[in-house]
């Protein structure tokens, strides 16, 4: 009997081991070594739809190795969708022996990862970098940690809006220069498409937990920041609870998924829905409208999923506020950074790699191929940049009414709870009111009673 109980504990214990093994080990890098033979590892994301960064780094690697004899650059692409990418990165950072030297870091994770001790402050390095003045102030802000130090160099920013297929719109009898004035206009167009063009998904708005941040940012926040006074989730230093805008935004999801105006749930809740939308649903004309990021055309202009003639098919519209009030339109902006890992043994070399990867030419390459909104002044003014992609003008224009995500170290955890709320409403498992209430409770658990206030 004792043996059997031991066996029982052992089998299930194996499950615990995996979790227990994830505790962090402390201590930063000692004895930086920036001469002689050295290897720096670069961790970044790569998917079927997102290969532009891989292209860039493959190009920078030989350049950098040639200019810095003795240095080997080890590229470690993490082939995962966004959510798993963060998890994998956090696990790599958990141990000194696996922590990368250069990290592709989402701006919303930077505060959290800096607080966790995963990132190295690079103020001393950027100070000596002559190109640093070329970066716009907003881009410098995006790399700051809670302590006000710089933890990353911005690769570009983005905005979000509505893409629509002009051919489908024409079939449905909708204008091809469409610009909705309110959420109701979007729903009305979706209902028209559903009635007149069968077999086409009228509207995509990301709704799945598995989709991670795209569900929060391209999905929920595009709605929530267009409600009421446009404050969204956070005001001053307080998180908002009991917000009517939150419930209304969830109600939008309820309508879209309840009336089957969105993709079927097996598509919507899949982790790979983002890739599917950009490489399959839009190019094959199976999706009439999608709320998505400004980087989309990057994948259509060149690469494995090239879509010739996309610019004739796709139209863009700004996301309207709930009832057209306030600024009338809304958008969300984020972006990614290249950061230096806190455990690196070669901080100067790692930073040099970052500064090479984001010098003018390379920034220009990345910002054009990945349809980023340039944050370097010299790139933004470059004629090659301006003429590269016909959608740049539109999406750059959205900067006027854009919003940024709350910059706090708790944001990533709160964002996960927003995804839970959205998925529970989209699947019909919870009413918008209940889901919003549950979010408020979880929010209070995460940030504490003192950091929340009731929305006015």
């Amino acid at each position, binding site marked *: 009997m004792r043996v059997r109980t031991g066996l029982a504990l052992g089998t299930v214990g194996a499950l615990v081991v995996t979790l227990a093994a994830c*505790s962090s080990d402390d201590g930063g890098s000692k004895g930086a070594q920036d001469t002689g033979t050295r290897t720096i590892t670069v961790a970044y994301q790569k998917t079927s739809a997102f290969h532009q960064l891989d292209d860039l780094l493959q190009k920078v690697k030989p350049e950098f190795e040639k200019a810095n004899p003795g240095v080997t650059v080890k590229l470690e692409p993490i082939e995962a969708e966004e959510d798993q990418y963060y998890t994998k990165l956090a696990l790599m950072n958990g141990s000194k022996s696996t922590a990368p030297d250069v990290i592709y870091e989402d701006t919303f994770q930077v505060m959290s990862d800096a607080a966790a001790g995963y990132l190295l402050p690079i103020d001393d390095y950027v100070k000596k970098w002559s190109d640093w003045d070329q970066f716009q102030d907003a881009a410098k802000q995006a790399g700051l940690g809670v302590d006000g130090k710089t933890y990353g160099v911005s690769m570009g920013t983005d905005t979000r809006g509505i893409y629509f297929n002009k051919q489908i719109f024409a079939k449905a009898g909708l204008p091809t220069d469409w610009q909705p004035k309110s959420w109701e206009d979007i729903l009305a167009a979706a209902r028209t498409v559903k009635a007149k063009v069968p077999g086409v998904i009228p509207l995509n708005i990301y709704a799945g937990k598995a989709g991670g941040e795209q569900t929060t940012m391209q999905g929920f926040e595009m709605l929530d920041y267009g409600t009421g006074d446009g404050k969204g989730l956070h005001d001053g230093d307080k998180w908002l609870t009991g917000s009517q805008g939150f419930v209304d935004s969830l109600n939008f999801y309820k309508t879209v998924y309840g009336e089957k105006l969105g993709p*079927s749930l097996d598509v919507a809740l899949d982790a790979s829905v983002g890739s599917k939308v950009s490489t399959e649903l839009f190019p094959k004309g199976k999706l009439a409208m999608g709320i998505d990021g400004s980087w989309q055309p990057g994948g259509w202009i060149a690469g494995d999923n090239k879509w010739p003639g996309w610019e004739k098919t796709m139209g863009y519209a700004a996301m309207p506020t709930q009832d057209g009030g306030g600024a009338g339109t809304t958008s969300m902006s984020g972006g990614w950074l290249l950061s230096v890992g806190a455990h690196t043994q070669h901080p100067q070399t790692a930073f040099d790699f970052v500064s090479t990867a984001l010098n003018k030419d390379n920034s220009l390459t990345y910002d054009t191929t990945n349809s980023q909104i340039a944050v370097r002044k010299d790139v933004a003014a470059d004629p090659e940049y301006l003429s590269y992609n016909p959608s740049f003008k539109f999406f750059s224009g959205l900067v006027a009414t854009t919003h940024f995500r709350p910059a706090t170290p708790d944001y990533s955890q709160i964002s996960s709870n927003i995804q839970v709320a959205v998925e*529970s409403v989209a699947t019909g498992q919870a009413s918008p009111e209940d889901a919003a209430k549950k979010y408020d409770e979880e929010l209070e658990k995460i940030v504490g009673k003192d950091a929340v206030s009731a929305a006015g």
Partner: protein
Amino acid sequence: MATETLVAPTGRGQRPRPGSRRLRALTRSTPLVPAVVLLGVFLLGPILWALYGSMTNTGLTGYRAAKPEFVGLDNYTALLSDGDFWKSAWLTVVFVFLSAVVGQNVLGMALAVMLRIAPKPLASVVSTLVVVAWVMPEIVAAFALYAFFSTDGTLNAFLGWFGLGKTTWLITFPLLSVILANIWRGTAFSMMVYRAALSEVPAEVDEAAQIDGAAGWQRFSRITLPMIRRSISTNLMLTTLQTLAVFTLIWVMTGGGPGTQSSTLPVLAYQEAFKFSQVGYGTAIATVTILVGAVFSVIYIKVLKPEVD
């Protein structure tokens, strides 16, 4: 070995002094020491570490990743008042009961019995097919089943031949899908255990019962089942514990969704630890899973009394 021969001459007939008996017990268990140490380091160690981890607020990122605090039983109190946890616990019980206890065991036993009386070529073809599911690595099996149940998958294509419409199995019946998947994957194990056990039942006992006029079912339930009781108990325990720890299969097929409709405890533990970055809280869930496994094992041991014959 050498130590044992030294002690052996204390010899029979001679009443050993209590001290020497204790010495003998000690020396005789010496060869066990490496095994005990290994168990201690690789089994007990992580469990104790997990217990400690579950009493901290360790995070995956943020301040709590750098400086976790000891929070005592806070994670457990939070767990007990969390509706998601109770839902997961219930889903786990249903999943384990239907897929392991009922599905794999009953089907495994049925296959084992039928294969005994089936003609040999048929038996070997069927058992090979069943074992293939078991041989596949879990991740491969999981993707195969995902492909089978997904909306454009094999099952719907098959049903389409009969004019049946498309069903979104993984969305509409997530728990049923993963239960069927786990039965498909795990039945081979039970079948093999039971085939071995059945071949150990002496034919004479069965024939004697037949002469006494016992019908087929009576012979099976009164003679065969009691005789292989120990195999049943061991098999039930192994399949239960394996199923309790199933993660890959569910994660690949449904990701625990839609919503939390198929989040068993391991999936919930993963989500809490790696999606919501609360490693401490996730560890607490995993620790509770150990307890659930222990409870199941105790029940089997008590009910089936494998040690007594």
